[in-house]
């Protein structure tokens, strides 16, 4: 009788234990946590598992102690990172795991990954505001080879003497245009050197749209979440840039909105000389705009160098990029908007070997032929490191335009949007812009969302921090 009881208890505890084991056996499967409901996250899980398999198959290391775990931000480069990680493991024996967060889920996933015992050793932040979340996790990169190869101090984030984050890709945005269509309308890029000339050309194309066979001068300025960042973040950068420049500052806790009239000017142009009625913008997506541009239904498309893969169907010879002119003083010398929203950070809380392995991996990425080729040719990155000599220049024609503007002595516009107070601020501006476009809100609401909310957000964050 008693023996039976013992047996039954044993069985029960084995059952319970096996279930516990079941929980811990799949570190990759729960990596998406809250995000697991969306399809992209599910894809990412399989990616995570694949890469772990790759890592296990790799030859055992001789002497290499650490390992690298990179939580990648850019889904479009996931495959390239997986390849280069496998290559590195093959050459050095150091296991490199690359997991890519689903689009829009990076912060969410980083938060859950960082809480694990096997936390990412390499992750990224999007700028000073993003760094605020992760400052306590960033290893000081000032003594590293990565830092010594930076071409310009402005491509890293500094905190006193420490360097918590270093940019690894420089991107550029502006108004991408279809050269063939522009020529068909009787213009070239040289005709557009200011807001007034841009408006004249766009208005003319809009007026003759049937004759030219387009639906509008600009692609739809979609305010769906997939596309609204082009206006609430990237376009909003220009008035902020000019204000900072005028005031000689690099960030502020209270924006004045000096150039908001110019912001209105350019946004008005986008929504009037457009392929669709402004009241429909709330539902227009990024795919809509891309499709309109690729199908030759619009001549201008505000976006960046990263969009190249989606629009290369038009042919390299047909693609060019113009600065976003907003009618500010001195804009004839304005270039494209160039900067970075991708900064590498090394996890300070990782073990010493892992930190070293991660730094070695990063050094290899920017100095070895394979690493440089992967970054410049496979991923198409322009990097801020001096090791990327001419043979490792990216082939993207939009980037060549960016270089051409710099060579012509134009001043690139900084990415000041990394100093925007929060996602919340951007969302409120986006919402106000959408309402303004549809006519349910006024421009004053946009100004309120832009100026008052900026200060409010900074004050709230400061007050909440106590």
């Amino acid at each position, binding site marked *: 009788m008693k023996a*039976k*009881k013992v047996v*039954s*208890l044993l*069985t*029960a*505890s084995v*059952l*319970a234990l096996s*279930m*516990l084991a079941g*929980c811990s056996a799949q570190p990759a499967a729960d990596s998406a946590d809250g995000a697991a*409901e*969306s399809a992209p996250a599910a894809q990412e899980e399989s990616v995570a598992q694949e890469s772990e398999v790759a890592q296990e198959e790799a030859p055992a290391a001789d002497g290499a102690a650490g390992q690298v775990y990179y939580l990648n931000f850019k889904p479009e480069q996931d495959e390239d990172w997986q390849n280069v990680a496998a290559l590195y493991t093959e050459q050095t024996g150091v296991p490199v795991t690359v997991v890519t967060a689903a689009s829009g889920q990076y*912060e*969410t996933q980083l*938060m*859950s990954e*960082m*809480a694990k015992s096997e936390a990412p050793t390499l992750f990224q932040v999007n700028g000073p*505001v*993003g760094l*605020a*979340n*992760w400052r*306590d*996790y960033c290893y000081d990169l000032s003594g590293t080879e990565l830092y010594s190869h930076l071409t310009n101090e402005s491509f890293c984030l500094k905190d006193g003497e420490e360097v918590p984050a270093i940019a690894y890709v420089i991107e550029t945005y502006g108004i991408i245009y279809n050269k063939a269509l522009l020529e068909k309308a009787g213009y070239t890029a040289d005709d557009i050197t200011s807001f007034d000339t841009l408006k004249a050309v766009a208005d003319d194309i809009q007026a003759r749209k049937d004759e030219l066979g387009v639906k509008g001068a600009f692609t739809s300025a979609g*305010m769906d*979440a997939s596309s609204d960042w082009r206006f609430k973040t990237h376009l909003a950068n220009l008035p902020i840039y000019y204000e900072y420049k005028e005031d000689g500052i690099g960030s502020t806790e209270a924006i004045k909105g000096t150039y908001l009239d110019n912001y209105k000017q350019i946004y008005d142009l986008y929504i009037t000389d457009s392929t669709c009625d402004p*009241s*429909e913008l*709330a*539902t227009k997506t990024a795919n809509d705009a891309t499709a309109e541009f690729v199908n030759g239904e619009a001549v201008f498309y505000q976006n960046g160098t990263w969009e190249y893969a989606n629009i290369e169907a038009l042919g390299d010879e047909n693609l060019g990029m113009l600065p976003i002119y907003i009618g500010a003083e001195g804009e004839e010398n304005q270039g494209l908007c160039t900067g970075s929203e991708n900064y590498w950070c090394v996890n300070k*809380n990782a073990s010493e070997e892992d930190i070293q392995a991660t730094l070695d991996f990063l050094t290899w990425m920017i100095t070895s032929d394979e690493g440089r080729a992967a970054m410049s040719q496979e991923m198409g990155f322009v990097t801020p490191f001096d090791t990327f000599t001419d043979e490792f220049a990216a082939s993207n024609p939009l980037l060549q335009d960016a270089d051409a503007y710099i060579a012509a002595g134009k001043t690139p516009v900084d990415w000041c949007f990394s100093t925007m*107070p*929060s*996602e*919340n601020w951007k*969302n*409120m501006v986006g*919402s*106000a812009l*959408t*309402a303004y476009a*549809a006519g*349910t*809100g006024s421009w004053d609401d946009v100004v309120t969302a832009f100026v008052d909310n900026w200060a*409010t*957000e900074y004050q*709230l*964050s400061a*007050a*909440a*921090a*106590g």
Partner: protein
Amino acid sequence: MEKAIRKFWPIFVLPTLGAFAIGFLWPFVWGVYLSFCRFTTVQNVSFVGLQNYANIWIDNTFTHAFFFTAAFTVVSVALINVFAFALALLLTRKLRGTNLFRTVFFMPNLIGGIVLGYIWKTLLDGVLALLDRPLLALDATAGFWGLIILMCWQQIGYMMVIYIAGLQNVPIDLIEAARVDGATDFQTLVRIKIPMVMSNITICLFLTLTNSFKLFDQNLSLTNGLPGKDSQMLALNIYDTFYARSGPQWKGIGQAKAVIFFIVVAAIALIQLRATRSKEVQQ
């Protein structure tokens, strides 16, 4: 049989109890503790006391979300239950095609909330555009009624099934006796059927009440709180506090909101259960 259960209960209880402890109890306790902390990741926390709770009302979004949620809950609970009960009454009559209709009404419940939200967003935006009205993302009133329509569509079928089960259990002899006594259809409904299905009403009210109060997926995909935060409900507001603001201080505030949210939902559900339970009759 009972002897066997007494002997082997650990086999049946322990695995689920373990899962419950790991999947619910421990996260819950830890979550409550986190609401008193400042943190970026859940392992690396510093205790700050009641500061997070004091900061919940640092802006008025939580209050706004609360009233929006409350209004939504009242309307959706009323509509869903009235329609579900009416449908159940219709479909317990001896009509042709009853089973087909039951299946059709139940089916929306099988689709996930996120997907439903996006589908209805497209549909409703299409209708609003035809009517020349501002789209969902521009009009909180449209967003509110959109959510109501969506929830009704999704939940009515499910509640209907529960009511049908209840109505089928009403003893025929009671109804026949009432008929013999000369009761009208309406009297039979109010005096016999409704009291007899009171336990089903308890369940349905509980489910719709808590579902409406906790609504997240549908809110996120249908309106995402737009315009501004005007159509933001409590769960989305908590999510927003967590992720749309920068700095570790906001995580704790979001967590504190979540604890308050839990207390409110639990309190409302308990009050409702007590109120409707007392009206149930023993068969």
